[in-house]
């Protein structure tokens, strides 16, 4: 079911003050965290690539 929600009601129900800069700070935080996750994932991929290679070599030499 769809509801029509006028802007005034939307603000009325959001009864706490999010702060005048809430949107700006959340844009910055989400952007920064996104970048952190991106580089972390990248780093794990690189690391796992090399550790895999290493493991492969190790298991090959063992066999």
């Amino acid at each position: 079911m769809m509801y029509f929600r006028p802007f005034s009601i939307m603000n009325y129900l959001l009864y706490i003050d999010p702060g005048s800069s809430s949107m700006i700070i959340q844009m910055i935080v989400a952007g920064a965290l996104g970048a952190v996750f991106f580089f972390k994932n990248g780093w794990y991929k690189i690391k796992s690539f090399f550790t895999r290679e290493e493991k492969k070599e190790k298991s090959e030499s063992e066999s």
Partner: protein
Amino acid sequence: MKALASSYKDPSGYMFMHEQELYRAVNKIYLPQYEKLMNSGLYTELTKEGLLISHQEEPKLPKAADVVKILKPVQIPLISYAYEWSFSMLQDAALCTLQNALKAISFGMTLKDANTFNIQFYQGKPVLIDTLSFDFYHEKESWVAYRQFCECFVAPLVLMKYCNLSLNKLLLAYPNGIPLTVCKSMLPLKAKLNVHVYLHVFLQSTVQQRSSSAPVRKQVFTKQKMLTLLNGLYSFIKNMKPAADKTTWDNYYEETILSKQYLQEKKELVSKYLNQISFSTLLDLGANEGEFSLLYKNTDKQIIAVDEDRHCIEKLYVTCKTNKISNVQPLILDLMAPSAAIGWNNEERDTFFKRVKPDVTLALALIHHLCIAHNISIPQIISLLHSISEYVIIEFVEKADPKVEQLLANRKDIFEDYHLEGFRQQALQKFDIIAEQSFSTASRTLFLLKRKAD
């Protein structure tokens, strides 16, 4: 149907008491959101996961003009507040809030507020009790409760982690969240090096201060950004570890000079006394790590274990959580300064002893600390215990006991009235002595008292 003193902020509805049970009124203005919560599957999902308190609609109860629904939530036997929680309790409450927020997004709703009072511990786990906390989610909107979440959860947690474990007590002074400027001013430099602390506390505080007078420019948020923000907060809080500091009461029972025979004798005697009375709620004052509270674990009794030592309460909470003990509720409480009534007109949040109504109180190895270390007189203690519960099990520790000798080692003995007979006479003023037995292994006596009728 008069709203509770704490239920005035949200125009969506309010809480009220009816025949000694709590109910929630849903106002007409919130009906679309309430119907979406119930019909979208979000309510079912959250209650199934134990993240939101379940309720039933009560169509037969009379309603005020603007009220469209009356809900009867599951009744929570004990209301506690964040300034009484240990680190892990506050951490789990924060994670519960974020899980609610994340689940809500996937059902097209958002969590519109995130304060600590909306979370309560029920059967050992944190649960969101404010059913009306959900609003429609619009992808272009940021999280309206972000600042509130940071001030109510992130600020106390980082202060407990980086400064001192007792700093959630600041929530007594700032019940609506510790201002980020205050939090920032107390944090050490190393906290700033953590990317999450830097973003959520330092940067947010700076941006808030700088842009409070600047004109607001309309910006557009995205769902991806919202999920990054919530998941980022979740992993940051989940991986937090409390500051390591040791207190006097750490490993009390392991390192203490008290003998194992004494402990065994005391456990047997406490159980014997408790078997003589009928009770459903027990308050263990000075519970330490819950040695005696845990005698009744996984029974139908409700056990409230309080101690002023945050390490003991943390350990007890972790023990209960790990072993899935749902009937023992640990809380931090300093008897010298029990939680006060706070909020608007001092009516929003009750004092500890107004919220807790036990049938029996345990006060084991406690009286000498109150009398000798804090100069509280025996009549004052008797009077407090008399106001708490009908039955009291109290251990009197004599001056000959090594623990009392330790307390008196560096101070003058000004406690002439502190002796067994004096205690007995004072107790008889307000209680009947049902049982009394001295330990064979220590200079201590255990009493079972029953309140005299006024």
